[in-house]
């Protein structure tokens, strides 16, 4: 029920509506809860609404942290 997914905005429409691409499936969602969204932004979509924007820089930071761990620890974990 609470599951919401990151999706990319591919088109802006009137009345606070937009189209997102979800692994090739296009879906119309509402932007009534978020401001300043442009095409190419990722938003977290839940029950047809964008809850807020996803920050690509923060995502990259989290992934970099994981990658570092993977490199340091994976060999000892695998062998």
């Amino acid at each position, binding site marked *: *029920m*609470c*599951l*919401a*997914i*990151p999706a*990319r905005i591919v088109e802006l429409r009137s009345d606070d509506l937009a189209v997102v691409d*979800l*692994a090739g499936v296009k879906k119309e969602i*509402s932007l*009534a*809860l*978020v*401001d300043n969204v442009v095409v190419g932004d*990722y938003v*977290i979509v*839940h*029950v*047809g*609404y964008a*809850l*807020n*924007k*996803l*920050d*690509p820089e*923060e*995502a990259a*930071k*989290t*992934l970099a*942290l*994981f*990658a570092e*761990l*993977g*490199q*340091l*620890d*994976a060999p*000892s*974990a*695998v062998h």
Partner: protein
Amino acid sequence: MKYIDEFRDGEVARGLAEAIRREANPERRYHFMEFCGGHTHAISRYGVSDLLPDNVKMIHGPGCPVCVLPIGRVDQAIRLALENGVTLCTYGDCLRVPASDSLSLLKAKARGGDIRMVYSSADAVALAQKNPDKQVVFFAIGFETTTPPTAVAIKQAATLGLKNFSVLCCHVLTPSAISSILESPEVRQWGTVPLDGFIGPAHVSTIIGSRPYEFFAEEYRKPVVIAGFEPLDVMQAIRMLIRQVNEGRAEVENEFSRAVDRDGNKKAQQLVAEVFEMRKNFEWRGLNILPYSALRIRSQFAEFDAEKRFPLDYQPVPDHKACECGAILRGVKRPQDCKLFGTVCTPENPIGSCMVSSEGACAAHYTYGRYKDV
């Protein structure tokens, strides 16, 4: 998919597991509760518990909106459809929740009730617009993630001047549920839950921000780490919690910084404040009546309030006597401790709330973890 697959990488998961193993002090035990059903689901589905050392245990909390919806509320929705002849719209997850007289919304539909599954609150408004001769009621449930969309729908109906749209509002608040877990009398009755920290909600926090949890960290000395719903997010959060416990800290940290900040979505918060106000009391399934734990529609929007428009008194209905949901939702017992688990109570025929949605502790354990204990 971008921003999903990268957070499910198996190699990185092994690296994280190793890091957790290294950091967890073998001399002590760690008990963390994940509040959200989304986390429960991720932990069961990706076998996160198997990657953790034996002294790190996850406890499944009450954070699934379908699981905490009391029977009496579903009864109200069913009555609206069967006795008041309304078109009742709701999210798909609500349809199978067991209600009184062996009914559910799905079974009420089979009896002729006009019950429709909608994907979004906006669909319910559109349905009312298209059918001016029918009363359309949106059965609105959920935590802080689904509340802003309901607020938007009510404002939209007001702008359109709809006379045939109303909302049965059952929206509940996350922080109150966490308080009740920490200080309810039942905890005393069942014994204390050995909780060393919380994994904080993911999408709820995109709306309310991380600030509301600061109270728990300070007042109850419990660390909180807000985490995304992917398995790597959960593992990293566990690692951050272990670190806080080891260092004797109790702070709010944010693993899900790609979507959550301290303040949350102010636009959504403002919309919610405009349309809703606190209820003094609200019954939660498995957690009893919790003060100031839910929302109702403000009087300015009374004409869109189904509880005002229709004769709907609330009748509390007790859970099945043998069902242990109450203890499970508070982390005192595990699904396999319930006599009904997997025999009388299954996802096809749920007796208690924890078995209803795939995010419930019993259903998650039934689907993904059942054979591990055999």
